[in-house]
């Protein structure tokens, strides 16, 4: 559904002469064949097509080879062989990422780790789970539930996405304000260096000796190491949860209500906002009972012990009233709470029903700028002549404006990209960031030029080289080259559009 335009580096990598690519493939297949069984190596086009993209389907590439190792020793062997031959390696979990982080490299091996889906250990006393990288996010909480525990980060794709991918992207979800991101919930990552050597980051204790390399690994989008096994923290499941649904006749008042809740010293478990067009789209889809007359609605969740929840809900209702809520309802039971959430959780599919394509932005801004941003987006919709529906993780300022367009109409695509770039640039100007939880991947490479100076980007490249001197792990992602940023700046200033908008798409 998403769309954007490939950059020059990726296109260059995409077009090696056919004969040269075939020769290279034969060489790599032969070398990997010594370490993997025949069924664990895919290279015929019909076999590699399922790996050509991740959740960002606008970017597609055929990998040279797909390797599906079945043991740790095989992962190490694949990495060691690729390192010797100078072959790029792109690690991949469930392929649900939204920024193209698992986009194959045309001359590289896609290392599929989805088979490693074993829960190694649940330690109820220590409140930790040790799981292989291919274990699904939700599966951890499902297994932990038997012990009254859960794993807090809950990205919207939690049914399908894997913990290895969550660590690579530092995934968030709707409960980050209270429970943190993946980084805050991971103790230890065991994996392999680019050379195929076993390595551990973090520890079973609360910290590890030396520099905090775990902080770099989490969110490194597969560029610093290959993640094999993850030890996560589990939390006691709250015994109660209630959700408040509040309507506002003005987006500015809704934004101010968010700030007022925080100012009152409340850290809600979830705090989400939707604007009127988004509310209309989801209400039509799931009939959650949302107020169609509201300019914006807020979902405020409280969890904890029944005592705590009653107290907090009462305080939030008070703040919301004082902030001018036009309608207020607190869930009376679990079924109603889930109904309130059903609309928010179906925001993306609901948008898919009202538009052939949409482009999902993911910037974070200071909360106080929410209303200003909504007003600015409203102005952009008329200027770019495109619709935009908005869902926000309002509690932490993470925005997901969904720009609606039709990818078959080249002009609409251009306008959508210009619209998206404008939102990201405004986010940076407000003191925010171009990506709050989806990652940079290939999608936001150009936006990184806006957020970071040349010296800062070069410093990040030196971090990459400290882990992977040969530059073989997921090359070309996350950190744009100087050339790319120079191009982006030039074209952007000249035309007000993102780079390479006229290039053919595939």
């Amino acid at each position, binding site marked *: 559904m998403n769309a954007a335009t490939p950059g020059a580096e990726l296109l260059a990598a995409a077009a090696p002469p056919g004969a040269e690519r075939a020769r290279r493939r034969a060489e790599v297949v032969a070398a990997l064949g010594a370490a993997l069984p025949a069924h664990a190596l895919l290279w015929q086009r019909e076999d590699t097509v399922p790996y050509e993209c991740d959740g960002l389907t606008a970017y597609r590439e055929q990998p040279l080879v797909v390797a599906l190792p079945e043991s740790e020793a095989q992962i190490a062997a694949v990495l060691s062989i690729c390192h010797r031959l100078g072959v790029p390696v792109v690690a991949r979990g469930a392929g649900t990422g939204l920024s193209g982080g698992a986009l194959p490299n045309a001359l590289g091996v896609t290392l599929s780790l989805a088979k490693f889906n074993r829960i190694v250990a649940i330690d109820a006393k220590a409140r930790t789970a040790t799981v292989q990288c291919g274990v699904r996010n939700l599966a951890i909480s499902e297994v932990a539930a038997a012990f009254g525990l859960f794993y807090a980060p809950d990205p919207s794709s939690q049914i399908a996405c894997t913990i290895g991918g969550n660590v690579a992207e530092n995934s968030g979800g709707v409960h980050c304000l209270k429970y943190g991101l993946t980084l805050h919930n991971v103790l230890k990552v065991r994996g392999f260096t680019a050379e195929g050597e076993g390595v551990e980051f973090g520890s079973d204790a609360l910290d590890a*000796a030396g520099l905090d390399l775990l902080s770099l690994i989490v969110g490194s989008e597969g560029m610093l190491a290959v993640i094999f096994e993850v030890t996560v923290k589990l939390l006691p499941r709250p015994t109660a949860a209630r959700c408040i649904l509040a309507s506002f006749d003005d987006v500015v008042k809704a934004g101010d209500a968010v700030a007022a809740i925080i100012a009152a010293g409340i850290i809600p478990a979830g705090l989400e906002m939707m604007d009127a067009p988004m509310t209309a789209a989801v209400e039509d889809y799931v009939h959650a009972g949302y107020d169609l007359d509201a300019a914006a609605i807020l979902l405020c969740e409280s969890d904890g012990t029944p005592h705590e929840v009653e107290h907090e809900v009462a305080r939030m209702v008070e703040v919301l009233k004082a902030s001018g809520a036009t309608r207020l309802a607190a869930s009376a039971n679990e079924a109603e709470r889930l109904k309130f959430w059903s609309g928010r959780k179906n925001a993306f599919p609901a948008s898919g029903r009202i538009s052939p394509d949409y482009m999902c932005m993911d910037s974070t801004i200071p909360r106080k700028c929410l209303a200003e941003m909504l007003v600015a987006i409203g102005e952009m919709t008329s200027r770019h002549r495109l619709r935009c529906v908005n869902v926000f993780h309002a509690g932490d300022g993470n925005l997901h404006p969904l720009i609606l367009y039709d990818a078959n109409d080249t002009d609409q695509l251009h306008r959508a990209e210009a619209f998206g770039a404008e939102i990201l640039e405004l986010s940076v100007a407000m003191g925010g960031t171009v990506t709050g939880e989806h990652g940079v991947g290939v999608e*936001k490479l150009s936006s990184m030029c806006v957020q970071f100076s040349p010296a800062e980007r070069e410093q990040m490249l030196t971090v990459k080289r*400290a882990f992977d001197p040969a530059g073989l792990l997921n090359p070309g992602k996350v950190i744009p080259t100087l050339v790319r940023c120079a191009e982006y700046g030039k074209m952007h200033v000249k035309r007000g559009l993102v780079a390479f908008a006229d290039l053919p798409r595939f």
Partner: protein
Amino acid sequence: MISTTSGLAALAQRIRDAAASRRTLRIRGGGSKDFYGEEPSGELVDTRVLDGAAEHEPTELVVTAPAGMSVAALEAQLAERGQCLAFEPPHFTPGSTVGGMIAAGLSGPARARAGSLRDHLLGVSLLSGSGELMHFGGRVIKNVAGYDVSRLVAGSMGILGVIVQASLKVLPKAEAEATLRFDMKPGEALAALHSWGTLPLPLDASAWWNGNLVVRLRGSAAAVDAASAQLGGDAIAAAAAGRFWLGLRDHSDPFFDAANEAIEHQDAALWRLSLPQTAPLLALAGDELIEWHGGQRWLATSLPAALVRDATSAAGGHATLFRGRDKSAGAFAPLPAPLRLIHERLKRAFDPVGILNPGRLYRGL
């Protein structure tokens, strides 16, 4: 940037000059942690020139403070609006600065529940070993643009750059607090803490020493009252409890006084054992104080360093020679070869000439 500009330009120039003539610099704020890590060396750079007011935005739950500001002043400013640094950083002495707090990366009694300093760090501005000013992270909680370099700086002991300013997540102070005391042997204390830990209780901090388990509850009044009733124990009056947790945080309570005495007169050392919370008692000879529900154990002992390190490592943790006159065994646990290599490359990446706090984290780095 906040108002540190004049000091900043001079400092950047000083780093560039030092790099050009390969003179090493010793980066120091209030000197509250001079004892920590390896021996400091080099020309003194006093980061207190990077002074100014902090920008606190209560509704954003974020504060941006200059490196030279004192932690005490920062916390006082936050307290005016009912907020705090939830990781409860140790001050040790009144002069402790924001820059030093981040470079040392230490967290206080609340760490097991509230998270560490690193968890609350949102962004840093730093001067690299080439005198280049760079900003990583930012002022928002959710931010995954590029590698998380700001958090790498937490606990880096100044070897990667001079911290100029930092943005930290702040939280409202808990509505209610209670401190309870129990008579318990250490094994009983750990068992109790771990069983309470699986329940949704507002269990915040814990300390076991000398037959006493002291726990702190923090949260809503309703939750704290209910948990106090559920757990039992002797309630400690607020003023005494406040002094107790402060003494623990700043290592000024009787356990640490005795440890310092032993360091002075008996050639003992104070070790910080970072262990899985459920690791068994290590039965190492010496006086032990257990925090973080078993995750941080202080050991004052004269045992050989290798013995302490081996026992800690066998239990899944690592041992830091926190205070001692003889640090020949290394202040921090040695790194496995692949990690040591990455450390060396990172040091060169940020400080190509090797002038910033060389050897303060590990010798040769």
